[in-house]
């Protein structure tokens, strides 16, 4: 009976995962084809190529086919692991993303760790300490929520040495602190809300020590709503690296994305949208699953 319900929620999460990724990819496919002009036109217009040459190039890339056919071809290729070729460099999109991904993953994962540590500790400190101390962590949380990341980054660059590809510490700190702030905010809010629950009152009346009360009976429950934000933040990290990568002149998916959009490099943008959608949905599905496993009261989506 119980195993059945676990299996069902896993199945539900997986189906909605596939559905969402399909919708996002479809949206990306149509959205980019709405844009006026493309990289080929831009490139060939500069070299004053004849309309015939432009048409030939477009035909080579299948951009002259009816949109339905293009869409079908897009999925056939996608299922074979082929995301097409970049319009500007001519390299396979998978190769371009593959080259940029390790550097971004390194940044995103380490920043996520920093975000978890700051978020959870700031949250506990601002909710579970006396009023004299707690104003400091909540001030810091609000500060991180209000200060734009591109400003903190600019100030940071003033104190650190010239940006380079290998320097990870400063960008990790920058992205991590800013990603952690919403986590801290939600965590401290749910801690404060739970603190007055009747069951904690009863536990205190029975003589449970303050530390055990906090560690065993308050924190796990407050973590449940916080998991939502953690999942959201994890999902956004991949795209959230854009500004950090530009500030610190790091190679990565974020910079690739900005360049690809500016150059209207359809296949590349499409590939990155797909990657971002997959990460976002994966992060959220994992949190949804964890939440359901921890707390059986959470109803399955209808």
């Amino acid at each position, binding site marked *: 009976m119980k195993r059945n319900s676990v299996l069902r929620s896993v199945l539900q999460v997986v189906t909605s995962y596939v559905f969402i990724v399909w919708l*996002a990819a479809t949206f990306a496919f149509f959205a980019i084809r709405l844009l006026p002009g493309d990289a080929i036109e831009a490139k060939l217009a500069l070299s004053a190529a004849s309309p015939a040459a432009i048409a030939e190039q477009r035909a080579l890339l299948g951009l002259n086919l009816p949109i339905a056919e293009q869409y079908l071809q897009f999925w056939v290729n996608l299922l074979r692991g082929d995301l097409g070729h970049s319009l500007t460099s001519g390299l396979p999109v998978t190769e371009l993303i593959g080259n940029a991904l390790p550097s971004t993953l390194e940044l995103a994962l380490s920043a996520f760790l920093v975000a978890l540590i700051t978020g959870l500790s700031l949250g506990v400190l601002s909710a579970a300490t006396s009023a004299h101390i707690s104003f400091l962590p909540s001030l810091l949380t*609000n500060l991180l929520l209000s200060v734009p990341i591109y400003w903190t980054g600019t100030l940071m660059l003033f104190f650190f040495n010239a940006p380079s590809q290998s320097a990870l510490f400063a960008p990790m700190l920058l992205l991590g602190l800013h990603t952690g702030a919403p986590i801290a905010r939600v965590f401290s809010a749910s801690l404060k809300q739970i603190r007055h629950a009747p069951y904690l009152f009863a536990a205190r009346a029975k003589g449970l020590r303050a530390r055990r009360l906090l560690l065993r009976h308050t924190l796990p429950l407050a973590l449940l709503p916080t998991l939502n934000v953690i999942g959201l933040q994890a999902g956004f990290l991949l795209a959230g690296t854009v500004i950090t990568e530009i500030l610190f002149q790091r190679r990565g998916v974020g910079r690739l994305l900005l360049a690809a959009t500016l150059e209207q490099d359809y296949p590349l943008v499409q590939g990155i*949208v797909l990657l971002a959608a997959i990460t976002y949905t994966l992060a959220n599905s994992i949190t949804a699953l964890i939440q359901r496993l921890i707390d059986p009261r959470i109803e399955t989506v209808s």
Partner: protein
Amino acid sequence: MKRLVIIILLLYMAIPMTWLPLKDPQLTHAAANRQPPNAVYLLGTDHLGRDVLSRLIYGGQHTLRIAGLATLVATSIGLVWGLGLYILPKFTRPLFYHSLDALLAIPGLLLALLILTLLGQSDLSLALAVGVSQIAAVARVSHGLAKQTYHQEFITAAKALGASSWHITRHHILPNILPPFIAYAGVIFAFSILNSAGLSFLGVGVVPGTPDWGVMLAEGRYAFRAAPWVAFYSGLAISLTVWSINWLADSWQKH
């Protein structure tokens, strides 16, 4: 205090800048470039010798107007979408709900970039881009708020009395979710300021050269060691404004 902050913000967004006794924010002065704050230029000058103080005041209005328009776009469409989920026939709801998720899964920055490329670089398209990229989030939050109200007993009672779902949404759900939704709109306004200035910082938002906080920060960044005040003050202005709006939204929510 709260009312005072709101009035100041609204006045600042509305007042014609020419009424204020400020130097021309576009007047360049090659001989006096990159001057640190002094008696003539209270906050110094930038790389073209333009007065940072007057650019800061002009630029704030520019940034806040764009963010305000973006907030209007995001909240109005988002609210209709989020509540519309309750008016639509039941079997279509999962499709609309999942399409929200799909839209959320596309990074807001990418969506904004796409819209900016589609519409071309201008103030209006920046406001639209920032607004549209937040619609899905707003829709999801208003849907969540409506869901809490929807499961209360008076809604069941209204249904039992034969009220249509349009009537329930309009007369029972909407008035109930409006107070928290207004607080959330404040948060969206704060995000809009951060995002529009961020796009300008990347050089794709407001046309470079315009007095605008994001543009000033971008221009000041390259010469940060030589003339740190340009980027410093514009970033400080963004932070203080976003802070006070977040604070307003927070206290409204508690109230």
